[in-house]
Every structure is written in structure tokens, then in C-alpha cells.
């Protein structure tokens, strides 16, 4: 248990230290050492509890409870004040409702409920701890170089780096808290801290746009937190429980826990930026890129899906489950469509994140053995691959001065190494034989088995759209253009190190995924589901996949770029001017060749896709909650 407490407290201590220290050298040093320590501690935790599969800890402390209540109240007051200050009254109102309710409950009913096991570790927590501990710290490491450039680009503004790193490490601490808290009040506490961290990080640049978006994120997340609060109150008042494992046990025994579960799932949906709340995650892209990688793709949004995966045994074919399935499915479909119309790389990544989270949420909603297997695999693969892509875009942005995909034309010539990493990342997102596709395959099979035809159609059409927007991006980068200067020597050492590790990780986890599956995920599922169904992928198929992966890795190493053929200019209807980049246009003018991708705005306009998705999901949410509340009242 001491490892867990260390993992929560140590990043917090580092955060405080980084807030105080202002020199570059000290900051670099601390971030590097702390990253190594945190990563090592997470691995140690995994090794420690790997054999036993985890346990629950009888750990109580009045002081901690009061401390949490105190901090929560402070945060509530602060949000209330900031809401007034920036004239965002909705945030203030939500804070004014939520904080007193929580305070009243915790000091009243909550106080009388005895929660024995506040902390726990199981194999799912281990998976999450490893993601946070390894991917999270890699991102922190990357930030060292990135934030120097960022500060350099925004020189007129004050140096806010101490605050940035403070928030980053505070966030890591809170994330560790979320994945090991069994007491819902504790979980709620850490949940709130991640919300606040993300609020400050989105508003980091303090431009009007950033402030607007940060408040949107805050309001949506607080709506979810309101659901969380209500769930806690209902559980405390009517069921007399405060612990997550008791909630699941009650559900397993056949007690109807649909309403609190639906409320908790609602909180998860807001955090995971599902429609109708997806706009906060799109807005969050104004933040510095490491923030997007850390909070908005690999970890924080994963807190939302983590909760839903946790709840999945009590979801399935009940109202809460159907709500989660449909919201996830619709989000996957609509976000995939919307991604087609985007040319800003970060927005494409954001929509893809929303879509993949939707897939995980839908898997959690189905709640069968195979679906949850797919969901956990998706969480792992997505965390690695997406953080790689975000960080690549961050590096590209600082070196080519744009995050637009159209400007990444022929990136392969300008930054070959970066482009290779990006290509691995993109291929990892949607192509066989990489991890995301394997998980999607399993998810599809789980959907079919669950008998939900609508969901099957959503994944089928969503996948088709996924294929389109990733490949056209890929196409931009592989284009070979003449006369290009290599500009990648300006990239920081730290950035290369992190990008290389993540690329290697992307490939390696695909190779070792059968091992991960049979030693980490399947044992976890066996503790939850009594009946163990066969998995989607037979061992034969896994071998074929591994062989394909080996082929995909080996072929480029052996044959890429080798040719003895005569190289000739491209065909430009005979009007070439000799360099493949210009041709002789009408009136004898020189015209440069300019190629653009298709965005199909007539079909997949972002606004329209969002509108349809929001309306559909709002209908689902409202219907489900009216039925549930109608049953209660």
C-alpha cells in the first residue's frame, strides 16, 4: 500500500517544488529525476501486485477525510469566484449547487457510513497505473524541450512554466488517486482535481479563446460531477454504501442499482468527452500540445472510460447500459465523420480521440466479457499511439510553423525521422496488424454477439470514415517532393528521446499483446465474470497478425527507398518546367503544383455532424433519465 500512497504524494510534492523553483536547470533536473522515479514506482507497483492480482486496503483516516472536504470546499469557492470574475455564471451556479450538497452529505449521512476499504489495487488499476506512470512521465519529459520552444514563441508573455509543470505533476498525482480509490468520495475528490487541472491548463495562454474554452470544459465536467454527486448521495442515502466494490457486488446480487450507475456513467461520459459534451475536448486543443497529449488523449479522458469500464458488469441490457452503448456508438460514428472535414491536425486527433473513446464507452456499455476485453485493449493501445501522434504534431508545429495537415506536404523530405514516427502512429491507429485494429476487431465481434445491430452498423460505417481521414493524412506526408531541405536538426534532444520511445512502444505492445492479454487482462476479467467466454481472436489469428506485423516492419527495412531505375519527372501534361513543382500554365505563366486533400464538406461538415450527434445523444440521455427518475419518483 505504501507504493500507492507514494505514487499519489510524490508527484504532488514534485509539483509544489516545481511551482517554487524558477530556474531552467533546476526544473529540467527535477522533472527528469521525478519522471524516472514515478515510472519506476509504477513498474514496481505492477510487479508487487502482479502475482496476487491486487487487494483491498483497510486504510482509514479522519484527518484525510476532513482534509479532502476542506480542499473540495476551497476549490468550490475558487470556481465560484472565477466564474463571477470572468462573467461565466453557469460555472458559479454549478459550484454553488454542488459544493454545499457534497459538504452537507459528507458531514451528514456520509459521515455515518463506514467505508472500510478506501484504496485498492487490481489488474485494471495496474494497467492504468502503468499508462499514467510511463506515458504520463514521458509526456512530462517531452514538455521540458517543448515548453522552452513555447516560451520562445510567446516571448511577450510572462514565463508561466512553473505553473505549467505544477499542474502537470498535480494532475499525475490525481490520476493515480482515481485509479486506486475504492471509496467513491475519494474518487470524487481526485476526479474534481483533474477537472480543475484541465481547466487551468486549457486556459494556460489566457487568450480570450483559451478562457472561453477552459470555462466550457469546466462547466461540462462540473455537470458530470453533479451527476457524480447525485450518485453518491443516492448511494449513501438509499443503499447505505460508499464503496465501488460494494456497488458492483450489489449489482451482481441482483439489487437494482440502475439509477446511481446511470448517474456515475453520465459523469464518465462527460469526462470522456462523449457527445453531447464533446465540444469541450475540441476547445481544449488551444492548450499547449503536451497538455493535449496528457490530459486530452492518453490519461484524463481515460478516467471517464475507466469508470465506465469499472461499472461495466452492472451495465449491459439495462437502461443505464443501453444509454452508455448508444451514446458511445453515436459518438464514434459522428466524431469519425466530423474528422473527415478537418484540416487542423490537432482537431483531427481530437475527433479521433472522441471517436475512439466512444468505442470504448460502447464496449463498456455492452459489458460482456469480450466487450470489456476489447475496451481495456483499446485503452492501452490508444494511450500509447495517440500520445505519440499528439507529440509528433507538437514537434512538427514548432518546426514547420503550422499544425495544418496541408502544410505537412512532403514532411518526409523535410523531417524524415519525425515523419516516420508519425506514419507509425497513424498506421497504429487504424491499420492491420497494429493494436487499435486488433481491438476494434474484437469490439466488432463483441457488438455482433451482443445482438445490437444498430451498434454494429455504427462501428462499420465509422470504421470506413476512419480509414478515409487517416489515409489522406498519411498521403500528405509520404508525398516525395523535390528540393526539400532537412530541417529536423532543431528538435530538442528530450523530444527525440520521447518520440522514439513511444514509437518503439507502439510497435512493441502490438508484438506482446497476446502476453498482455493472457497475463493482465484475462485474469482481471476472470475475477469479474464467472463465465469465461472464448476471446475474439483465436491463437491462429494472433500468429498471422504477428507475422504480418513482422512483415510490415521488415519490408521497409530491407527494401525501402532502394531502386536502380532511372528517375524521371512526373506527368504534368507535358507542361513541366523541370522541377516537378511548377508547370507552364496558360498565358505562359509559371504555376506551382499545389495539391489539397478532400474534406467533403457537403457530406461531413463539422457543424452538421455535431448537431446530429448532439441531438441524438441528448434524446438518449433525456429519455433514459426521465424513465429512471420517473421510476424513482
Amino acid at each position, binding site marked *: 500500500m505504501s507504493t500507492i500512497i507514494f505514487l499519489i504524494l510524490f508527484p504532488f510534492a514534485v509539483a509544489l517544488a516545481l511551482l517554487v523553483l524558477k530556474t531552467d536547470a533546476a526544473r529540467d533536473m527535477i522533472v527528469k529525476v521525478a519522471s524516472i522515479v514515478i515510472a519506476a514506482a509504477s513498474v514496481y507497483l505492477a510487479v508487487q501486485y502482479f502475482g496476487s492480482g491486487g487487494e483491498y486496503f483497510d486504510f482509514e483516516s479522519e484527518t484525510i477525510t476532513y482534509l479532502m472536504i476542506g480542499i473540495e470546499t476551497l476549490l468550490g469557492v475558487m470556481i465560484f469566484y472565477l466564474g463571477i470574475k470572468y462573467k461565466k455564471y453557469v460555472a458559479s451556479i454549478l459550484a454553488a449547487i454542488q459544493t454545499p450538497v457534497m459538504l452537507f452529505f459528507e458531514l451528514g449521512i456520509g459521515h455515518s457510513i463506514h467505508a472500510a476499504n478506501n484504496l485498492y489495487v487490481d489488474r485494471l488499476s495496474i494497467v492504468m497505473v502503468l499508462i499514467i506512470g510511463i506515458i504520463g512521465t514521458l509526456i512530462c519529459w517531452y514538455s521540458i524541450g517543448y515548453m522552452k520552444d513555447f516560451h520562445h514563441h510567446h516571448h511577450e508573455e510572462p514565463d508561466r512554466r512553473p505553473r505549467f509543470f505544477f499542474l502537470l505533476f498535480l494532475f499525475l498525482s490525481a490520476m493515480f488517486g482515481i485509479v486506486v480509490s475504492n471509496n467513491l468520495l475519494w474518487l470524487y475528490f481526485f476526479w474534481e482535481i483533474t477537472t480543475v487541472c484541465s481547466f487551468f491548463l486549457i486556459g494556460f495562454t489566457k487568450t480570450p479563446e483559451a478562457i472561453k474554452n477552459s470555462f466550457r470544459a469546466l462547466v461540462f465536467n462540473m455537470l458530470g460531477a453533479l451527476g457524480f454527486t447525485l450518485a453518491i448521495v443516492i448511494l449513501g442515502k438509499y443503499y447505505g454504501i460508499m464503496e465501488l466494490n460494494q456497488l458492483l457486488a450489489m449489482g451482481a446480487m441482483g439489487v437494482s442499482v440502475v439509477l446511481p450507475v446511470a448517474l456515475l456513467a453520465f459523469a464518465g461520459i462527460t469526462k470522456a468527452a462523449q457527445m453531447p459534451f464533446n465540444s469541450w475536448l475540441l476547445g481544449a486543443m488551444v492548450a499547449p500540445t503536451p497538455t493535449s497529449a496528457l490530459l486530452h488523449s492518453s490519461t484524463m479522458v481515460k478516467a471517464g472510460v475507466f469508470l465506465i469500464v469499472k461499472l461495466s458488469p452492472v451495465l449491459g441490457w439495462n437502461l443505464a447500459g443501453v444509454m452508455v452503448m448508444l451514446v458511445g456508438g453515436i459518438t464514434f460514428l459522428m466524431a469519425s465523420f466530423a474528422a473527415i472535414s478537418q484540416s487542423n491536425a490537432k482537431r483531427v486527433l481530437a475527433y479521433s480521440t472522441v471517436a475512439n473513446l466512444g468505442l470504448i464507452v460502447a464496449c463498456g456499455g455492452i459489458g460482456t466479457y469480450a466487450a470489456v476485453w476489447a475496451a481495456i485493449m483499446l485503452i492501452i493501445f490508444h494511450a500509447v499511439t495517440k500520445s505519440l501522434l499528439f507529440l509528433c504534431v507538437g514537434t512538427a508545429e514548432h518546426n514547420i510553423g503550422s499544425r495544418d495537415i496541408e502544410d505537412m506536404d*512532403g514532411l518526409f523530405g523535410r523531417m524524415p525521422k519525425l515523419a516516420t514516427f508519425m506514419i507509425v502512429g497513424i498506421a497504429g491507429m487504424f*491499420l*492491420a*496488424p497494429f493494436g487499435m*485494429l486488433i481491438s476494434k*476487431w474484437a469490439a*466488432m*465481434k463483441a457488438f*455482433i454477439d451482443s*445482438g445490437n*445491430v444498430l451498434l*454494429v*452498423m455504427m462501428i*462499420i*460505417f465509422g*470504421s*470506413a*470514415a476512419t*480509414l*478515409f481521414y487517416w*489515409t*489522406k493524412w*498519411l*498521403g*500528405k506526408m*509520404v*508525398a*516525395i*517532393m523535390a528540393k526539400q531541405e532537412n530541417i529536423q536538426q532543431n528538435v530538442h534532444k528530450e523530444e527525440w528521446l520521447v518520440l522514439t520511445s513511444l514509437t518503439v512502444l507502439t510497435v512493441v505492445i502490438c508484438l506482446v499483446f497476446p502476453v498482455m492479454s493472457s497475463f493482465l487482462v484475462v485474469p482481471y476479467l476472470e475475477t469479474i465474470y464467472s463465465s469465461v467466454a472464448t476471446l475474439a481472436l*483465436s491463437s491462429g*489469428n494472433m500468429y*498471422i*497478425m504477428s507475422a*504480418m506485423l513482422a*512483415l*510490415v516492419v521488415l*519490408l*521497409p527495412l530491407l*527494401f*525501402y*527507398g*532502394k*531502386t*536502380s*531505375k*532511372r*528517375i*524521371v*519527372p*512526373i*506527368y*504534368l*501534361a507535358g507542361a513541366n518546367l523541370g522541377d*516537378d513543382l511548377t508547370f507552364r500554365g496558360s498565358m505562359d505563366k509559371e504555376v506551382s*503544383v499545389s*495539391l489539397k*486533400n*478532400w474534406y467533403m464538406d*457537403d*457530406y461531413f461538415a463539422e457543424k452538421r455532424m455535431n448537431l446530429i450527434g448532439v441531438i441524438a445523444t441528448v434524446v438518449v440521455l433525456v429519455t433514459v433519465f426521465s424513465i429512471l427518475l420517473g421510476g424513482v419518483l
Partner: protein
Amino acid sequence: MNLTTSIIGIAAYLILAPIAGGLLAGIDRKISARMQGRFGPPILQPFYDFFKLLEKEPITVNRVQDFYVMCFFIFIVITGCLFFAGGDLLLIIFSLTLASIFLVIAAFSSNSPYAQIGAERELLQMMAYEPMVLITAVGFYILNGSFNISDIVSSQVMGIQYLPGIFIGFVYILTIKLRKSPFDLSMSHHGHQELVKGLTTEFSGKTMAVIEIAHWYENIFLLGFVYLFFANSLAWSPVLAVVVCLATYFLEILIDNSYARMKWQFAINASWIVAITFGFVNLLVLYFIS
């Protein structure tokens, strides 16, 4: 299907598919010519073209496109091998997607306007047909409880009895896959010269020959899909299935010669509408009766 039959399947595919595919292409050109009131080329013409391309001077526009085309060929062959070895239908579809992506990337890598427009159109076509292909796999899975081709061809029921809608939908998108008019948007084998040769504009000589042979492999594999709808454990079913495959191919030739090329908007609208009406409804009925 056990290991021996799998190996026989793979070996037969590797050797016979290019021969059958080339002959089919030759017959296609002959029948097309007759439909247009012409005499037409010899049946072996596709092979002459293939060997001629091998004899041409090797040229390329950059160092990498041949690599991508080679990957396209390798994965098309792997896809077909998996299919004829009785493998998993979803795996086969994913492998086919991977192969097609390599071809698109090869075209993109040339940075040539005609090739790029072809590549974008090819992607669009992929987006158009992909749902229906996946629905086909789902349909077989619900019917047989397995994605394995070996289980599908040895099942008691005949696919077409329960999957008529999906069959119609599949034949519809087969027109795209076989690059037939009205959907030959990306390569334009009938000289529609606004995009020269589209996707394949920058490929010449041996590279082009590799693409040709890959298409023969691919076409045989696609007809294998049609075969699945009619094959079951009955002894005469393979004969019926092969006859239906040939009839389907003839139908595609007829469609090819009867329609002018449509806009890309029509390709995606029509394919998705067909996928939703025929495919989805068929799936719903299947769930309802099973």
C-alpha cells in the same frame, strides 16, 4: 479445413489465380468488344500486355513508389491466400484494406496531380464499399456462428437463402471493386482522359505489370466472396457456386458496358444507401429469425 487442404488451397491460389484472372480479363475484353460491335483483342491479350510491360525500360518518379506497390502486391496475395486457406473473414478484410492502402500511398508518394486525384478517389471508393464488405462478413457470422471460411463452406445452410439482401448489396459494390463503369473513378481503364490514368498514372513498366497481376489475384479472390454465398456441404454446391461466380462476372461486364461513368457523389450515396437498405435490413431479419 485441416492443414493439408489449407496448403492445397494456398498453392492452387498462388498458381491458378493469375492464370484464371488473366483469362477472365481477356474474356472480359472480348465480350466487351462484342457488346460494342467490335471484333476485340485475342483472349490472351492481357498476358501479352503483362509480358510487354516487363520488357519495358525501368523508370520511376521517386525511390519509394515501387516499394509501396510491391507491398500492395504482397498483401493482396496474402489476403487471397488467407481466403483460400479457409481463414478468418474479418482478418481477410483487414488485410485487403492494408493492401489497398499501400496502393493509395504509392500514388500519393509521387506527388503528381493526376495520381493524387486518383488516390483521393480510390480512398473515397474504399469508404463507399467498406461498410458493405463488413456487413457481408457479419451476415455470414450470424448465419454460421463463425468467421472462418472453412466453417462457412462446410455449413448445412446455403448462404444465399438467408442473405439475399446482402448478396445484392455485395454484387453492387463489386462493381466498384472490379473497377467497372459507372464506378471506375480512380483508374479509368476506359480512356476518360481528365485524370489520365488516375491512380496508376505514374507507374510504368514492371511496376505496372505488378499492379496488373495483383488485380488478377484480387479479382479471383473477390469472386471467392460470391462463391461463399452458394457453397455449402452439399456436393453439387461448388458447381453451382462457380456458375454463379461466372454469371456475376458477366453481369458486371454488362453493367460496365451499359452505363456511363457517374460522379463520385453518386458512388458514395448509392453504395451507402444500398448498404443500409439491403445490408442492414437483411441483418435485422437475420437477428430476428435466429
